[in-house]
């Protein structure tokens, strides 16, 4: 009677509606302290690893760069700087494989094997004493982007447009993707950084209260954050949320915390709320403490094809192959390598792709875990409707995509799908629903551009 019971029993913990419960698979890494990934020889820094305009390079091949020195500048307002994670020489500016499957322009830096690679960065002003514009500019030139995965430039989020105001700021510590534990470790090990970064964000957007949403499978993180807040009288509240995917999606998180829905096509800003990832807050605090721009991040490396799973502090640009080798990849047994989480990540063919600013996990699976199942006809069981966090009808949308009924697709609100893949996850007929949703969005775009 599980279905019946679930329907009758109201969940006592705050959460959003619908969603799914994948196996967490976080047990192998959630107690491992963050370790440092050793330096390697070559770093590949794609000029486009954030949402927005690519960053034009400001170095030339052969030029010597220091660890933390900018190699590319913001290509516009919605764009950020890019820095070399090592002291070395610019080897080339050329097309390199990107985790998105394409060849993308990148600055390639050859590390100097004799350099100390010490943390020595130019001083930055105190963010709580400086003018708002100065702080925003510093955040932009530190290369800061959202570390949750979408890699949206942080200074854009922190700049409240004229005529708008922000009432609440939210930090996202859900980490609802299975396997990933990087945000978890950051919250446990650097709760002070998270809180200080959050204070900077709170003052930038002028919010009166801050909330940090953390799923209840991270009790130690909740305790650590509460302890960090406890010492100071701050308007910050830590909220334990039910464990459910995709709670880390901005709109779902706001539904869970405030029981308010972001209107279709709008942003949290329209509810006078701004959401950032906990890792981003910690990175912002570290930048203003030490002057260290965004040149490394914590990445969870796990999966059953990895013999030494880890939470690693990895310099941006390190090849995925080097990270996997460091973690004991079972050569020959790995059948699938994923950059990102298992629900929304990307499978890789070429393991020389680099770790990006938005890379939260590297997963390697053996044939035990990788199961490619044959698609069967839809029997309209309705499980995808129960799973979809934005209340779409994926079964019907899939049918409409297959018949290329573009007008109907829009009428059934396909554009509100954010591709969380919950529908594909539950489908008993193994229909690639989320893939069909992407195809459908392409059809709509095509029709709009041909008009």
């Amino acid at each position: 009677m599980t279905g019946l019971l679930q329907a009758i029993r109201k969940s006592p913990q705050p959460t959003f509606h619908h969603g799914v419960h994948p196996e967490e698979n976080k047990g192998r890494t959630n107690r491992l302290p963050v370790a440092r990934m050793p330096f390697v020889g070559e770093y590949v820094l794609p000029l486009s690893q954030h949402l927005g305009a690519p960053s034009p390079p400001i170095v030339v091949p052969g030029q010597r760069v220091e660890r933390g020195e900018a190699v590319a500048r913001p290509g516009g307002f919605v764009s950020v700087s890019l820095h070399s994670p090592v002291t070395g020489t610019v080897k080339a500016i050329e097309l390199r494989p990107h985790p998105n499957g394409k060849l993308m322009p990148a600055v390639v830096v050859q590390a100097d094997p004799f350099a100390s690679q010490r943390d020595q960065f130019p001083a930055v002003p105190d963010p709580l004493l400086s003018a708002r514009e100065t702080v925003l500019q510093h955040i932009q030139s530190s290369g800061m982007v959202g570390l949750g995965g979408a890699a949206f430039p942080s200074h854009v989020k922190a700049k409240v447009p004229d005529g708008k105001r922000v009432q609440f700021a939210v930090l996202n510590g859900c980490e609802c993707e299975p396997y990933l534990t990087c945000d978890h470790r950051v919250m446990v090990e650097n709760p002070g950084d998270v809180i200080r970064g959050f204070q900077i964000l709170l003052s930038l957007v002028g919010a009166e209260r801050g909330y940090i949403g953390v799923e209840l499978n991270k009790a130690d993180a909740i305790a650590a954050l509460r302890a960090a807040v406890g010492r100071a009288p701050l308007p910050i509240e830590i909220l334990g949320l039910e464990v459910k995917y995709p709670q880390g999606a901005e709109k779902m998180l706001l539904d869970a915390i405030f029981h308010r829905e972001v209107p279709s096509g709008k942003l949290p800003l329209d509810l006078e709320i701004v959401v950032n990832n906990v890792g981003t807050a910690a990175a912002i605090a570290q930048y203003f403490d030490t002057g260290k721009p965004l040149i490394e991040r914590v990445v969870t490396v796990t999966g059953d094809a990895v013999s030494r799973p880890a939470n690693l502090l990895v310099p941006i640009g390190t090849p995925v192959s080097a990270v996997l080798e460091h973690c004991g990849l079972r050569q020959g047994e790995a059948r699938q390598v994923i950059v990102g989480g298992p629900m929304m990540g990307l499978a890789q063919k070429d393991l020389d792709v680099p770790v990006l600013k938005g890379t939260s996990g590297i997963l390697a699976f053996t044939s035990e875990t990788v199961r490619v199942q044959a698609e069967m006809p839809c029997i309209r069981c309705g499980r995808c409707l129960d799973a979809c966090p934005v209340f779409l009808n994926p079964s019907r949308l899939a049918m409409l995509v297959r018949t290329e009924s573009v007008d109907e697709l829009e009428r059934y609100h396909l554009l509100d799908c954010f591709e969380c893949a919950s529908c594909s996850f539950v489908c008993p007929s193994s229909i690639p629903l989320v893939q069909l949703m992407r195809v459908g969005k392409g059809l709509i775009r095509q029709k709009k551009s041909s008009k």
Partner: protein
Amino acid sequence: MKRHAPDLIITTAPFLREGSSTPELMRQVLLATIPVVAAGTWFFGFGALLVIFTATVGAVAAEWFLSGNRSGLGTLADGSALLTGILLGLTLPPPIPLWMAFLGGAVAIALGKVIWGGLGHNIFNPALVGRAFLQAAFPEPMTTWSAPVSSWFSSSSPYVAVDPRTFALPLMRVKTDVITAATPLGLAKFQGKGTDLWSLFFGNTGGSIGETCAVLLILCGLWLASRRALEWRLPVAALSSVFVFSSTLHLIDSTRYPGPLFMLLSGGILFGSVFMVTDPVTTPITRTGAWVFGAGLGFLVVLIRIFGGLPEAVMFSILLMNAVTPLINRATQPRTFGY
């Protein structure tokens, strides 16, 4: 540094699956039919098992030959044809000639499923399409019922009882001494006689092979719901609706209209609610739609049973509701987040 790992599999996210599968769902419903088949055999003899078996052979044969299968199990592998055959068999009267059962099974698959495009594409419940065909083509055998040969209190062995009509061939007339019996609904409608509720509850009455034992059907339904193999809203809505409408009539005039318990325990409403209404393909996909479907079904069942010409109405009511399911789906689309 190795540039390529050629044996890496490229698929799209998600890389995890919940793990339930459509054949697995079919298997669970198939498992749930086993006790019902056993009970039908107990009450109506070995002949009843032969009827179910033959209807299943008809369905499976039609599926294999009409679905373009060339070798192996083909489309039989999903188990849906097998299930359609068994469900059809369970809705037939025990003494029906075997060739009719076979034909019914074949028609159920051919006109009920394959012609629409196979699994997932049909509008009407395939087993009930087969039954409706038989009802239209052979009204007399489809309404000739045998009395249960066994009861919980009898020691006679049911497993050898076979009605001689079972082996009748087309155009053949069979004289038989086997006791025929009216169904409880027939008794109520045409002779104004009631049936003991306990008999209805345990199934010791005339009727279709699988429909008589109420307690077993309820248990099967609960088991399927516990395995998430059925959408519980559909049977709950259908049965509640029958309860509400028949209670209303019963309260108006208890001498003319039978009570709600009799209406729920007699005829095919329980069997239909557990095994027919829960066919996901032919019932609404939306949760609101499930309530609408069930409510409409219960209303039609009560309406036809009491005011219509036939004593039983579950089959036609389900088929009627199947027909409006696309409309129900369209009218009950969930509100999108943020609208």
